[in-house]
């Protein structure tokens, strides 16, 4: 019988450290008009935002829970606290952040990353942003990077123009929920022609037990501009449910480029029902880099709408589903203009009873001629307790296209291991090489600290579950 190689679960040590809860305001559990009004009042929002929240609540209550994909029957939204305001004002320097919160982000490596390689950082703790900063040189060029709650007031006209126009409160039940209770998140505006050399990063940390996080990220990259935005998230594990129903709306204008990198490492009690969409104009480009490692249940399908000629999209993602996890992830691309192109590379590893499900949509609208698209999915299963499924949907309404899709499921080949061993490489190292090679197309796209973390967790022993 072939020996198997053990791949341990991700080391969650630092992610599971809990701070004592110290809140300035905590909404009641559940969803009522009174709760929505109290959130809006706490934020001192314009009237139009309150009206939108209330309308969203009405829509949320009318929509059913989706019956496809993950089993959401145990999710009890009425038992979630939808707004938790930490007892801290937003700071511009880390020295002004309370010690326990600062220490949390220090452990996560955020301040260090900011010092070494980032142009700006936003740190959200529970429902509010507690730290925000950006290099002065970018401010001088007109780049705006601030928390979303401030942007609603300070940049009201831009926010109102774009807010929840790509992801509306009518799309599905959890976008409606988001519209009603959203809080925190980042607003980024990059003016015409400005190329932001270093990444901006936002990190979302949910500390409160039984709470939800509903951050809203809105990014506008104007004509000819470029930006790399990194998003990270984590939460400690509790015995009760947590819910994440955030929204990310991205607007890439003509000839602009945006790379959006995410490492999701929510705890195993989290329901991660996030919605991400990007609209790309002529000759614009969006690059998604996505790593999904955490949460109990994820339903996440970053979507690109290529609405201008020669717009392009690239999605690179990895999903790691371990024991007790159902990760239903994928990518959606809509080619809505001629000469658009897209590439999707998705990899998954499932082990110990985990279930990884790739679900994708590739749609070509009637007027979108000369479209090129390729989708490549690979799944590595490490034992027979796990499951791996692939269900791409391709909808083509124009003949002048060139569409290719391929997917493969399997385990590490004994022949490949034998070949490497015949070249003098020990078996354990051979297996490690193969797994590193499997995930390499994704790790090389990740920010350095996340790539290191990913490689660390994929450490191999000689006895285990890869055969």
């Amino acid at each position: 019988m072939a020996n198997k190689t053990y791949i341990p679960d991700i080391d969650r040590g630092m992610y599971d450290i809990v701070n004592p809860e110290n809140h300035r305001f905590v909404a009641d559990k559940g969803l009522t008009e009174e709760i929505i009004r109290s959130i809006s009042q706490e934020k001192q929002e314009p009237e139009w935002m309150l009206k939108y929240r209330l309308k969203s609540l009405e829509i949320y209550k009318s929509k059913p829970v989706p019956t496809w994909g993950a089993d959401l029957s145990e999710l009890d939204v009425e038992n979630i606290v939808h707004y938790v305001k930490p007892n801290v004002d937003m700071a511009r320097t880390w020295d002004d952040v309370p010690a326990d919160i600062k220490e949390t982000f220090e452990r996560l490596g955020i301040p260090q990353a900011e010092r070494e390689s980032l142009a700006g950082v936003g740190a959200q703790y529970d429902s509010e942003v507690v730290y925000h900063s950006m290099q002065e040189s970018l401010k001088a060029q007109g780049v705006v990077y601030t928390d979303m709650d401030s942007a609603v007031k300070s940049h009201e006209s831009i926010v109102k123009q774009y807010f929840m126009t790509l992801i509306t409160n009518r799309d599905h039940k959890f976008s409606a929920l988001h519209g009603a209770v959203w809080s925190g998140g980042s607003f980024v505006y990059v003016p015409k022609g400005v190329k932001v050399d270093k990444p901006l990063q936002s990190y979302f940390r949910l500390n409160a037990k039984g709470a939800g996080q509903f951050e809203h990220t809105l990014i506008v990259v104007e004509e000819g501009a470029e930006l790399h935005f990194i998003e990270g998230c984590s939460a400690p594990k509790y015995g009760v449910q947590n819910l994440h129903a955030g929204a990310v709306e991205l607007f890439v204008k003509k000839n602009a480029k945006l790379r959006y990198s995410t490492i999701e490492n929510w705890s195993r009690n989290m329901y991660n029902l996030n919605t991400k969409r990007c609209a790309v104009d002529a000759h614009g480009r969006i690059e998604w880099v996505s790593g999904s490692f955490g949460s109990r249940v994820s339903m996440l399908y970053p979507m690109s709408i290529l609405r201008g000629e020669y717009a392009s999209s690239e999605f690179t993602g990895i999903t790691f589903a371990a024991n007790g996890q159902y990760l239903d992830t994928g990518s959606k691309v809509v080619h809505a203009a001629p000469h658009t192109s897209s590439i999707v590379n998705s990899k998954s590893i499932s082990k110990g009873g985990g279930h990884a499900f790739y679900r994708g949509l590739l749609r070509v609208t009637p007027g979108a001629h000369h479209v090129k698209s390729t989708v490549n999915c690979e799944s590595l299963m490490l034992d027979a307790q796990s499951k791996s499924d692939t269900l791409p949907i391709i909808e083509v309404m124009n003949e002048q296209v060139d569409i290719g899709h391929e997917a493969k499921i399997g385990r590490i080949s004994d022949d490949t291991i034998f070949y490497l061993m015949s070249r003098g490489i020990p078996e354990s190292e051979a297996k490690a090489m193969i797994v590193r090679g499997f995930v390499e197309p994704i790790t090389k796209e990740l920010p350095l600290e996340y790539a290191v973390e990913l490689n660390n967790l994929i450490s191999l022993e000689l006895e285990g579950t890869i055969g």
Partner: protein
Amino acid sequence: MNYSTIPTEIQELKAWSIAQPYPEWKRINLPSDLFAQALETPNVCVTGESSENSYFPMEIHSLEDSVSFPLDARVLKRLRELRDLSIVKGIGNKFTSFAMTHFNQGAMIIGQPKQHTQINVSHTLEGTNLVSHYLVYAPKNSKMEVIFDYREGEASSKLYSQVVLLAEPGSDVKLVNVQRLNAQTQSFQNIYALAEEGAQVVIGDLQLGSDLKASNVYKRLEGHRTQGEIYTLYYTAEKAQADLSYTLNHVGKKTNGHILSKGAMSKQSKKVFRGNLIFDTGATQSVSKEEEFCMLLADQIKADSIPGLFCAEDDVIGEHAASIGQIDEDRLFYLQSRGFSLTAARKLVIRGAYEEVLLKLNIPELTSNVQSTLDRLLESGREI
């Protein structure tokens, strides 16, 4: 009557079938008069060297009474299982149960151990509604070649067909369904195949006619070391709609499978193609692949492809691929440079694409019949 569970007794099943809700399909539009009763006796011709000893017209109520010799109890049990709608779902319980309980053409087709059985069942629809139900039983170590051919007549008709195949250990079965009905005829077809240990089963599904067609082939590779192939080709033109679904379910160890589909779409036609590879836990060392190639010949088509890969076993290899696009321009240019018109060049390329499927099925008479049908389609005003 409580219809929360599917009844197994035939009279109850008949009533259950009528009571089932009308299907609502997301991707193709079904008309409201689908389930007309089949009243007339259809025109069916059965040929083949072995037809006298292998073809037994079927009684609705009793499998045992359909044949002149006793059937093994185990075989009867398995055949009855294959009439259980909780197992044989097909294109939907409404269609499957209707074909099982209202058929006006049915038969058991039984092979002989260590013998080669070859049967052609040819149906010509002339304004009649044909509801056919066939049970094909391949005993151990038998070899069978069965062709179900549904040809066009002049008038509009409806076809509902259900074929269930049991391939016992060591059997070698080739079962081909050819649908070349006229455009006005609506066609709903279902094939369910169960392969036991060491069986080799090849199923061909050639969907050339009908402007409203649905076809489902589900093959369960239950025994160890079974081999299952599904080869299909389809053609849609004008405002045709097609819903095609092909599934290989690997259950036993060391099973091999292959789904290959070639299709061409023209004018304003629509189709959805579903190709599913399913690996159950325990199907160790199984290998399967699925390929779909769809040629698009007009800009108002709607081509949906949903290649699914579902895996609950790590020690397998599963692959799928889908390719959708126009005919390669270089290839057309080459043919035109040799004197072919653009239309003739496209026809030649389509015929060439279909050739691979026909070669896999390896039935020369079938190949020539299908090619001539295709030529007629392409030249009759439904051309590309």
